[in-house]
């Protein structure tokens, strides 16, 4: 089976989850995305992306006990599955092959 196709936002979410490791909870993922990608993330889009990635078996989570700050409500700790890692690798390969030979031309472009 070829690795699953990843949308841009899906890719970003998976990368952030990887980066955060044991701290990959919903609010921190959102904050990290907003910080690094520099854009506002709608929570609705974020949670449906979690769902979609889980449906595709690229992301999984386990539930851990909540803190006082969230009225004791449980937390989901996200992790990228092996298939998710494979999909990220494949996506990087695609981008890399598309970039191939273009570095020089893009460097010349003014204003970037």
């Amino acid at each position, binding site marked *: *089976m070829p690795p699953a196709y990843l949308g841009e936002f899906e890719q970003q979410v998976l990368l952030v989850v990887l980066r955060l490791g044991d701290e990959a*909870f*919903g*609010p921190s993922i*959102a904050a990290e995305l907003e910080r690094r990608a520099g854009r506002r993330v*709608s*929570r*609705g*889009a974020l*949670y*449906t992306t979690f*769902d*979609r990635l889980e*449906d595709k*078996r690229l992301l999984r989570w386990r*539930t851990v006990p*909540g*803190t*006082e*700050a*969230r*009225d004791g*409500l*449980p*937390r*989901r700790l996200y992790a990228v599955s092996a298939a998710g890692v494979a999909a990220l690798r494949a996506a990087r390969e695609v981008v890399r092959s598309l970039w191939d030979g273009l570095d020089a031309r893009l460097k010349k472009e003014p204003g970037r």
Partner: protein
Amino acid sequence: VTRLRRPAATSRHGPPRGADWLLRVLLPPGRDSDAIRGDLIEEFRRRRSAGWFYREAFSTIVQGHRYRHMMTLDSLLQDARYAARAAVKAPGFTLLVVLTLALGIGASTAIFSIVNGVLLRPLSLREPDRLLWISEANGRGDVISASWMNYVDWRARAHAFDGMAASRGSSLDLTGIGQARRITGRMVTGNFFQTLGAQPSLGRVFGDADERPGADRVAIVSDEFWRRQLNGDRDVLGRTLTLDGKPHTIVGVLPAGFRYLRSYDVFTALGGITGEPWLADRGNHQGFVAIGRLRPGVTREAAFSELQQIEADLTRSHPDTNADLSVVVEPLAARLVKPIRDTLLVLAGAVGILLLVACVNVAGLLVARGAARQHELAVRAALGGRRGRLVRQLLVESTMLALAGGVLGIAMATVLLRVLIAVAPPGTPRLDEVVLDGSALVFALAAATACGVLFGLLPAAQASRANGQRLVIRTRAAGASAASHRLRRVLMAVEVALALILLTAAGLMMRTLMHMTSIDAGFHPDHTLVVNTSIPEATEDRPRRIATVNEILARTRALPGVTSAGAGMSLPIDGSNWNSVFWPRDKPLPPAHDGLPSAAMLPITDGYFDALGARLVKGRPFDARDTATSAPVAIVNEALAARIWPGQDPIGRQLKQGWPESKGDWREVVGVVADIKFEGITERTTLQFYLPLAQDPPGDFWIVAHTAVVPASISTALSGSIAAVNRDMPIATLKTMDEIVGESIARQRMARFVLGVFAGLAITLAAVGLFGLVAHGVTERRHEVGVRLALGAPRASVIGLLVRHAVGAAMTGAVAGVVVAMPLTRSLEGLLFGVRPVDPATLVGVVLFLLVVTLAACALPAWRASRASITTALRAE
């Protein structure tokens, strides 16, 4: 601004209540929504922005739901597309499944429509549930009509009813509009229509005034009679109808579709007879039955016990007439459908079994296909296809097949319904109300969906058990499909058992009809045309009656194509119209009147026996010698001769109709005729006492004509020969004798037809299933067969090996079927004749038939496998 913010973690400030409530209520369930809510609350405590919380709560709810629905719909569509592709890829399989289901669903929808129209749908009267049918039963428990005086007392004393009416059916001779005709009429009390809750479409219904003695004779006509006989004339009110020779004024027209027990042409008010003395005789039961409308809130049971109380009081006050009587109460709707109810329930049960057979058959097909697709399913499971998705995929497939079967089934139902209505016994109540309507469509679709889920579950369960890895590796090995093969054998056994139940029922009906049609009825119904007519009431004088009958007979005999003709007061099968005690002169009188024998009294003319093809055993028939003034003579049937003069010659002995002390003539027996079934094919033959019609001419009689041509072709000529004698003589029941006999066994014929068709379908489906089972086994074991043949096994033993499982399944099913059929066929009891519900001969015959079908279904694939050349068989793996 930053100074005003406190650290989020220390804030006890809660999120906006409204938004939080929405989150709790509206987040899509399932994916731990508490965690998402927790995330939002946690962030809110950091941000302290109610606007943010609202916005994100909404976006989470809305997008979450959108994603959910899209996924469900998306995957369902995907499943449907996949199912459609799979169906097209296996056209034979798809066609077989869809046709099988269409048969099952079509048949059950048609039967459902009839059961719904006749039994289930409420009567088209106001609050029909409150209407009760009330009559009386005699000491033997036979339901008889109610005595008028008892009815009057019920009506006056009972409190359980809003109204209680009485009525009696009577055929009426209609004269004055073209050729006289006999029409159906009902004589009713003034409150009859109010009690039923019927409104006229024109004019008025009857009132209490119409019931009083000496009231004007008034009539209300049915919508159909009004349109057909009165040309739908809106000025019909006030016109006069001559009924039984008496003028009746039309006061109302009933709405279309009005029906009381059956459809009647004309209703007349009782006013004409309420003053007559015979009505006041409490011992007279003159065909009246009552209907009562329950007071709101009063139960049937309460009304019944009140009537029983009144009846008991009446018995105490009138012991001479009421001693053995009891009151009988039934819901009106139940009474109406009584003649056909049991037959319909049998057919409903049978069609249920047929639907089950279809389902089992399709389940077997799907299991076989599931086994063939195990490799595909295993691969999908191994690649991460979730078990739930695979099961749903299979359910979607089976439901789609079932719905296709349902749609085709509805088309089949419309055709079958027409056939069923055509074969239904004449006079079946409410048959004209039967249509394939919305409820039938709902039934068909519900049946289809239920079938889809039901027979989809088995293969789905099978697939969900599939062990992916093992199957991918071992899929080609024979062992992998052993479980599915076992399952199919069980399904086959179930199918054969169900088919056997239907076969048994059909076999019993077949034997019943064989018995019925092989009975010696004492006459030959073929090539015989009969017509019922009567001399207008005004003509009472005997010579005139005799002259009229003779003139009609002379004209009838002169018709081209008529070989013989006669007249009689009664007609075989239709029933004898006059029964009386009699006494032979040479026997001592019994001490009490109870001991007197009773016989059907049958005035007939010469030619009557000839026209019916009855067999004269001894002596002579009536002929021209027997006139009104000649010596009184009689002909008796064999049963009478054997009962009164066993072992003796009855010719020349004398009989008298009536009580011994009556002034009647002693009649000399001149002939003995074979027994004729007057009361119906299946009834016991009564004692029959024929006398010359000229010596006791009835006002109402049958003309019987035997023809050399197709009898129906002279029906116009026959009614013409009556009209030529007297235009006021009504023509009634102009039929062939074959029709009259056919109608008397129509219930059994319909049951045989439907059960026969259903059983035929069921056994065909079972045979196809068995064929498939063997063929499948053969394909799987080709290699083994090749090896065996190569090692020199005789072909016969190889064939035996291949059919063993299928025959085993069929026989297991047969045994189970016999065990289940035995109690079930008891429900046929009321339809059977000459055969008991548990009939060993039928069961043995059915099982043998099944064995033949099984062997035939198995033989072809097994034979083909054993014919295969050894090398081909070995190469198959």
